[in-house]
């Protein structure tokens, strides 16, 4: 443990791993921020990550390029988003139930279709996005190679965080989003279509989570396996709460979770005689602790989880 911190190379490796583990969660968490700011719980983030991973694998497999994979990842996640929006916004079904249903659907569908489409090729690694160094920035000592020698999706995430912050806090659209999440009746009476904004928010949210899934396949493991999202969507939900429904906060929370995940991987290697399952718990315990420590000061969007029906008292 101590050697880890005193050895710059080991530390750089650890931080690099943290970042890589944080990226998919961060995409989903920022998506979740957008959806929850509009008052819709997006429990389906998990299913969207999985759907995105599946789409990325299939797209890349069929068309031979990761760009097609990314596109299909977004399409699959958008389908999940359409279902969620249709159920939770259109039909005003309980948002949590709708989200869980999508997660289960995605798990079954992707496993089945992956076998059908990828078949025996499921274990062959496929092309993905390779890291490339940004001239100048990557020359920064220590942090340069960690932050600025990464793949295109990670760079996209760097831009996404400030962009989302700007969109939420500095645009009329963001104002509508925040208003609808707090008091939809007020937004409705101001002439904003609550279902439209919510549907759009859910779609964006799912698309981003799908990109997170695509990242896992295209930039990390280069194969698709069943249930490979493995709870990342739920960690993202915790991260967005920890980040106070703010995209920057959510991103930082994801880095924290990524770090605790990277740390447990390191610990597994450094202490092989300890059952690895113990270390696997670290990120989850960390998320518990973080939520407990920061609980109380958190004020979620007031209308979150509630359906909105005009004229309903």
């Amino acid at each position, binding site marked *: 443990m101590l050697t880890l911190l005193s050895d710059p190379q080991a530390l750089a490796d650890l931080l690099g791993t943290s970042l890589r583990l944080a990226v998919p969660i961060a995409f989903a968490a920022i998506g979740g921020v957008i959806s929850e700011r509009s008052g819709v719980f997006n429990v389906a983030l998990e299913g969207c990550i999985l759907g995105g991973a599946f789409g990325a694998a299939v797209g890349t497999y069929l068309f031979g390029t990761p760009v097609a994979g990314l596109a299909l990842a977004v399409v699959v996640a958008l389908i999940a988003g359409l279902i969620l929006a249709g159920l939770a916004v259109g039909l005003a079904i309980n948002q949590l139930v709708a989200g869980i249903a999508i997660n289960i659907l995605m798990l079954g569908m992707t496993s089945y279709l992956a076998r059908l489409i990828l078949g025996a090729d499921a274990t062959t690694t496929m092309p993905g996005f390779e890291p490339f160094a940004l001239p100048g920035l990557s020359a920064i000592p220590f942090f340069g190679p960690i932050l600025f020698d990464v793949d295109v999706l990670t760079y996209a995430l760097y831009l996404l965080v400030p962009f989302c912050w700007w969109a939420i806090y*500095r*645009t*009329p659209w*963001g*104002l*509508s989003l*925040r*208003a609808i999440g*707090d*008091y939809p*009746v*007020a*937004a*409705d*009476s*101001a*002439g*904003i279509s609550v279902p439209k904004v919510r549907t759009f928010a859910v779609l964006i949210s799912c698309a981003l989570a799908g990109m997170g899934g695509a990242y896992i396949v295209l930039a990390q493991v280069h194969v698709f396996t069943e249930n490979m999202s493995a709870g990342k969507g739920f960690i993202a939900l915790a991260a967005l709460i920890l980040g106070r429904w703010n995209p920057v906060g959510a991103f930082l929370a994801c880095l924290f979770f990524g770090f605790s995940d990277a740390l447990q991987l390191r610990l597994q290697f450094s202490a092989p005689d300890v059952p690895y399952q113990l270390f696997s718990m670290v990120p989850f315990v960390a998320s518990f602790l973080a939520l407990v420590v920061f609980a109380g000061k958190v*004020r979620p969007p*007031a209308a979150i989880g509630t359906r909105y029906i*005009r*004229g309903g*008292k």
Partner: protein
Amino acid sequence: MADNVLSLHGISKLFAGFRALDGVDMSISRGTVHAILGENGAGKTTLMNVLFGLYQPEEGEIRLNGKPVRISSPRQAMTMGIGMIHQHFMLVDSLTVAENVALGLPGQGLSLDLDRIAARLAELSHEYGFDIDPHEVVWKLPIGMRQRVEILKVLFRDAEVVIFDEPTSVLAPNEIASFLDGLRRLRAAGRTVLFITHKLDEVEAVADDVTIMQHGKVSARMKVAQTDARDMARKMVGREVVHDRMDKGDIAPGAPILQVSDLVVEDARGIEAVKGVTLSVRAGEVLGVAGVDGNGQAELANAIVGLLAPKSGSVLVDDADVTSASVHVRRQRHRVSYVPEDRHHTGLVLDFSIAQNAMLRDFTAAPFSRGGVVQTRTVREKATDWVRRYDVRMRGIDQKVRFLSGGNQQKLIFAREVESDPRVLIVMQPTKGLDVGAIEAVQRTVIAERAAGKAVLYISTELEHILTVADRIAVMCAGEITGVLTPDEVTTERIGALMGGLHEGAEA
């Protein structure tokens, strides 16, 4: 008819077979203040929601400037120049004034230009004599200021017709005068004001025309100048209303039951809302607490019933110190009953039935439950008995409380709190949003409790209602009791001074 900015012809609106509006005809002249008068449940609010595009009428025609129009959404209503100030404000508490105004404002670019909006708001605010900081967060503003924000929102959108739904029901007496001034200024600026109310004096004070509604129909229309309050009242309720003080009967008050000393209470933001209040209420006495809304009355009531823990001071009920007792202990063992200000959030579970709400106070104890099992039959018998005796108008005791009118909801709460045979009854703003008939029922109940030897603390911003029931009146300002008067000593000047914070004596 050319000067009619808005006219309605045979408007009907049905809710699940119930005719909330039944063939309403109405015409509103340009540049006037037009009052729509009616009791709760007369269909006034439904009518306004039709005009604002929130509801679609099943029958009838709306004409704007002589042309038939279909108002399909609030956005469309606004582009047509119809603005509405709802009874429950349509403001997002977590946003600033400027952000609330910017919300849904058409013609904004990609980026939010709050500075431009704030500047224009400051101009408008100055023009109409409102004193609003555009960058203040809404939850920090008192109610009267929030209403001004609502008005600014509508003015910002250049509305020609401004609809107010029960605008004064949330205001304190001194805020009402400046609000009515605001209406006059709107009229002077050439806007048309539609103003829903059940307060006769306000109609007399500002309106040019009045349309009176009863049971979803128009029962009368007239010029205000050609009528008087008694006539309007008769047409509104269909009978003469007693406006004068009720005959309470003389009761010699007994021993003090509720004793509050040096109570200091902080509000949710950690600011001292009650600063050392001392009062005592004796058996068979109604102590009124008057004052402008938001001067610590809510915190005082909450601290007495146990919803807020006081910072210092004590609360005694029958000489037992309950300062640190739980709500449950206070209500069950010390028999403190509470009619809260907010019926919807604190008083009732809206999606529960009438019967379920009736047992909400005492469902853990006999006769409502025995051995941990709710006695459904007893509950239903009690509920049936109460709704009959307290005149709760409903379709059946299984109806959801949500669908009762405000007055009937309040009667149900009173039934529940009073039938538990309390020692102390705390009532907070009990007449808010109620019509004349329901107010009378509430006051009769309070006076009956007084006759039964209960200690009643009656907190309200409606001075006249306090005068009707109270034996003594304590006036609160800025968290302190500024003076205590008997009803006979009350003069407008004196009580106005006390409400404004000029001290006379500090114990009730």
